[in-house]
């Protein structure tokens, strides 16, 4: 597994030269965008000034103001689109290949909503679903696939319309190293943390999930609640060492994580509030800090294979 030291070396030796080329582009676009923003602000400012002096909102002035704002948005979108595509293939794609050259990257693609629902982690079906930055391929003996996902549920209409975010973050699918036929879902534990033994009773009555599976590892139980349809197979999957590894992974990320084991695959959802792998137009690319962040986010996802020991193939599944 590549470490941050390896990446720093790669950054200093070859990567920074590529970034220099892209940095020139970023500066040009950032300058043009600043001009567009300045123009929009000027026109809007003039309109506002006229309204203030006349002391009334003149309908003739509304049209240019709105038109100018919309044009600004369209130009911004048009100008950044090409840069974002270039950035993703040059920066994100390269970091992915640096971590593991057998992996592929597509900035536009993402894990579809059917697969997202197949994981059984989330019970609410999203009606607004989008994503990007799909990485897929075989690392070691394990097939993996992950992308950024934003799944939302919109309910009501008109003034009562409400958005509810089901999940936003990194969604990972890996081939699990053991055969199994059951479904096991590992969710963050909130009820037991809040209400103790009574919370556990409430969890066992959850009608949307399978049987409650109480495991022996107190630290794991402290962080997670496990549901499944087979008490023995769930323990076969969640061996004592895997429980420890999941706890370590949870501590390492410091994020809300969900896992499920369905159809001989492991699904891992790591919540993020920020958008992942997006360029920052008004910040220099030559700064190591943001590039390090991209590396760490990608490494976190690809590293799940090592963190959960998925490449150990000592069982009949190879």
């Amino acid at each position: 597994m590549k470490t941050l030291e390896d990446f720093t070396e790669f950054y200093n030796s070859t990567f920074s030269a590529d970034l220099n080329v892209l940095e020139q582009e970023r500066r040009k676009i950032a300058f043009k965008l600043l001009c567009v923003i300045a123009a929009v602000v000027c026109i809007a400012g003039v309109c506002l000034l006229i309204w203030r002096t006349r002391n009334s909102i003149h309908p003739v002035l509304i049209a240019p103001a709105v038109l100018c704002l919309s044009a600004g948005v369209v130009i911004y979108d048009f100008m950044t689109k090409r840069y974002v595509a270039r950035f993703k293939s040059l920066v994100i794609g390269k970091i992915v290949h640096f971590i593991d050259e057998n992996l592929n990257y597509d900035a536009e693609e993402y894990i579809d909503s059917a697969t997202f629902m197949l994981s059984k982690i989330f019970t609410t079906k999203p009606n607004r679903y989008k994503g990007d930055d799909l990485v897929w391929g075989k690392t070691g003996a394990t097939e993996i696939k992950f992308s950024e996902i934003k799944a939302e549920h919109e309910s009501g209409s008109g003034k009562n319309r409400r958005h509810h975010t089901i999940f936003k973050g990194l969604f990972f699918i890996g081939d699990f190293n053991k055969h199994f036929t059951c479904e096991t879902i590992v969710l963050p534990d909130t009820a037991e943390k809040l209400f103790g033994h009574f919370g556990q009773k409430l969890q066992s009555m959850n009608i949307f999930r399978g049987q409650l599976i109480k495991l022996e590892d107190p630290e794991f139980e402290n962080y997670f609640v496990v549901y499944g349809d087979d008490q023995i197979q769930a323990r076969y999957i969640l061996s004592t060492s895997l429980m420890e590894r999941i706890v370590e992974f949870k501590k390492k990320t410091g994020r809300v994580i969900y896992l499920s084991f369905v159809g001989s695959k492991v699904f891992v959802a790591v919540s993020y509030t920020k958008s992942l792998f997006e360029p920052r137009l008004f910040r220099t690319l030559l700064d190591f800090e943001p590039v390090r962040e991209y590396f760490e986010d990608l490494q976190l996802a690809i590293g799940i294979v090592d963190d959960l020991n998925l490449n150990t193939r000592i069982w009949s599944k190879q």
Partner: protein
Amino acid sequence: MWVLIVIGVVVLLAVVFIYNSLIAKKNQVKNVFGTIDALLKKRYDLLGNLIATVKGYMQHEKNLLREITEMRAKAVSGRMSDDEQVELDNKLSKMLGGIMVAIENYPDLKANENFMHLQRTLNELEEQISAARRAYNAAVTTYNNAVEMFPTNLAASLMGYKTKNVFEISPEQRENVDADKIFKS
């Protein structure tokens, strides 16, 4: 009057609930124990194949292989108490561990595809057996809690339910596997 009827119904429902939950917990223990049995039987079947495969290669461990064959025959015959069965299973687990370590000295055997497959299957089975034991311990703990906690303990004592023992390994099994010691004994 109505109040009495309501109280009566509530008490009756509580009794039914406690009674059913105790039976469900007892059956869960029985069910998991059955699975352990099934998995152990599967292990005995595999052992036959394993011994047949490694016999030709392992010249220095003939005695150990003979011993395992005898143990397997004894286990399959089914003329043993539960305690004897558990003890035999523990012994077998230890010897299997020893065989797997000894295999490092036989490069030909390590390259044998049939053996590799057997080894993987055995690993899988050992993991499944361990999972079933953990499930059994979890089921017994839930059952024991119900037998000892109020108010279910009242119903449990009326039904003659007693606490059960969880699976525990012997102190010598807690030590690391020492292949040399196994083969010398």
